[in-house]
């Protein structure tokens, strides 16, 4: 019988035949923590009596969630993480380098890898065909020491994509639409596997946006095949030798097949306070916003800033709307400066934040006030997410965020293009 992508990768990494429903012990190629989950991981690692890392060069600490630190307690957590890196010889990415998931995509992930992160959006690397998933501190502590973890091999949903995005419609709109269809727990414990003829034209940044939000439908992973676009991305990032083709078998068994015609999508929004509370932008137009935030592991890439710059060029943000922009990595920021996007965005009234998670999780750099509304390109809008349970967060594409920042209210980007 044929294998899904999930079954293929887990068969390889468990050195056996893995099929959906099996429990396997798999090799972990790369494990990482970030600064809000890393300290607990390290304490558990030490309390367990572990001393050495199984793979120091494939163990990474990212300082991205509270970076630079806004509070003394978090500064002390950063010290703990830096000391651990010094003691064990693992890699560490300092304040300002960027968001863990973007750096994993730029520098580490390969098709067929097993990647664990103590962050739920670790699924982002599924865009490159890596079985990448988030776990808690205990699981990561054990994986750091043993180089292994256990998995229940997930059943897969095939998301079959055809057609092309129309003007003003982006990968973010597709994944919001899908989460609205599947529901926040509709793919709980499952793998979402993306396929279909539309993949031939779907860029890596688009794939990263889509895979990033697989967890918002409950999924364990969001997997793309390793194809020519994957190969080209790896070559551009200096690791073309790591490419290997990775496709599901033609006779693979899927629990569900969901067909989406990209031509039929329109700009979408996720409304407070649930990611699966999805509506077309046309039905929510006119809601006043006090803050627009473009960035995060979902939509802080060069292509996202390009779209925002295209819409904001020669325009100004609405006087009642703050515009915050955080590039996902240092490389994204440098390229955005080279391409002139940053100048355009600053001239339009944007505040540029350092590469990192920024306002996404309510810790710093854009905490909302009581009754305020933010239109964010992030992946979560739970009550309290941006630091205030009395605030409201809508999720949308960078184009919708940019257009809405100009008008001061939720705006269909096609009206300004």
């Amino acid at each position, binding site marked *: 019988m044929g294998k899904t992508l999930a079954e293929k990768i887990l068969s390889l990494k468990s050195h056996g035949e893995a099929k959906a429903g099996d429990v396997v*012990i798999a090799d972990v190629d790369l494990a990482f923590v970030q600064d809000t989950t890393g300290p*607990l991981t390290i304490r558990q690692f030490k309390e*367990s009596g572990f001393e050495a890392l199984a793979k120091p060069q494939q163990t990474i600490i990212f300082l991205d969630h509270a970076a630079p630190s806004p509070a003394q*307690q978090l500064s002390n957590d950063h010290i703990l993480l830096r000391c651990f890196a010094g003691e064990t010889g693992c890699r560490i990415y300092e304040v300002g380098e960027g968001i863990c998931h973007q750096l994993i995509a730029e520098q580490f992930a390969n098709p067929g890898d097993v990647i664990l992160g103590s962050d739920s959006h670790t699924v982002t690397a599924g865009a490159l065909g890596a079985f990448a998933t988030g776990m808690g501190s205990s699981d990561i502590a054990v994986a750091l020491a*043993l180089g292994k973890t256990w998995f229940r091999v997930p059943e897969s949903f095939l998301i079959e994509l055809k057609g092309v995005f129309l003007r003003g419609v982006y990968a973010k709109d597709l994944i919001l639409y899908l989460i609205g269809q599947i529901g*926040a727990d509709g793919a*709980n414990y499952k793998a979402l596997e993306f396929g279909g003829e539309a993949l031939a034209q779907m860029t890596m940044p688009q794939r990263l946006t889509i895979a990033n939000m697989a967890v918002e439908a*409950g999924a*364990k992973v969001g997997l793309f095949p390793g194809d020519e676009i994957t190969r080209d991305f790896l070559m551009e990032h200096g690791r073309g030798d790591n490419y290997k083709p990775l496709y599901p078998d033609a006779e693979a068994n899927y629990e569900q097949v969901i067909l989406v015609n990209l031509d039929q999508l329109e700009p979408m929004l996720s409304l407070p306070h649930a990611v699966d509370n999805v509506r077309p932008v046309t039905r929510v137009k006119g809601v006043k916003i006090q803050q627009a935030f473009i960035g995060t592991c979902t939509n802080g890439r060069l292509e996202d800033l390009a779209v925002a710059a295209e819409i904001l060029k020669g325009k100004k943000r609405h006087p009642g709307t703050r515009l915050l922009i955080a590039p996902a990595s240092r490389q994204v920021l440098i390229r955005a400066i080279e391409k002139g996007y940053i100048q355009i965005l600053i001239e339009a009234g944007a505040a540029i934040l350092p590469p990192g998670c920024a306002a996404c999780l309510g810790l710093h750099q854009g905490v909302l006030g009581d009754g305020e509304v933010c239109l964010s390109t992030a992946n979560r809008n739970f009550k*309290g997410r941006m630091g205030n349970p009395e605030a409201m967060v809508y999720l949308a594409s960078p184009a919708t965020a940019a257009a809405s920042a100009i008008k001061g209210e939720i705006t269909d980007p096609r009206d300004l293009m």
Partner: protein
Amino acid sequence: MVKMPDLVLKGKAIKLGDNISTDDIIPGRFAHLRSNLPELARHVLEDAVPGFASRVKLSDFLVAGKNFGLGSSREHAPVVIKMSGVGAILAKSAARIFFRNAINQGLPVLLCDTDKIGDGDELEINLTGGMIANLTSGITLNCSKMPPIMSAILEEGGLIPYIQKHKGFVIIS
């Protein structure tokens, strides 16, 4: 081998709704307290259930709807729930990462039809058999089984004691 007695928990139900997220359990604005767990535990479920930390009693059960614990991988979420005194979580379904984290912390999560449980109902949970007796209504509920490896981790009191004992993962077929 001596047969171990069944592990039984008794307590009162505190009912919650669907989709209780990790941001409900620990709002992001308290992230600076994550290395001070006793202080963090004072804010558990603060926005979703006002006054929760002062209301919860030792061995109470959280009884939720679907998709309990969706969101972040922060293991602090089950840690502070356990620290608050909660003996077990009952839900129609639980988000994947939270479910695994709770078991890794030795906090039982049982999946069952929680519509059959009311706020304040007295429950007796047989963890070994996966059965819940609602002493208030007289109804008995069956829980869905977790993979044997998770039961083994829970029996050891969490992942770290499990690994210290077994020195690795053991697949039980």
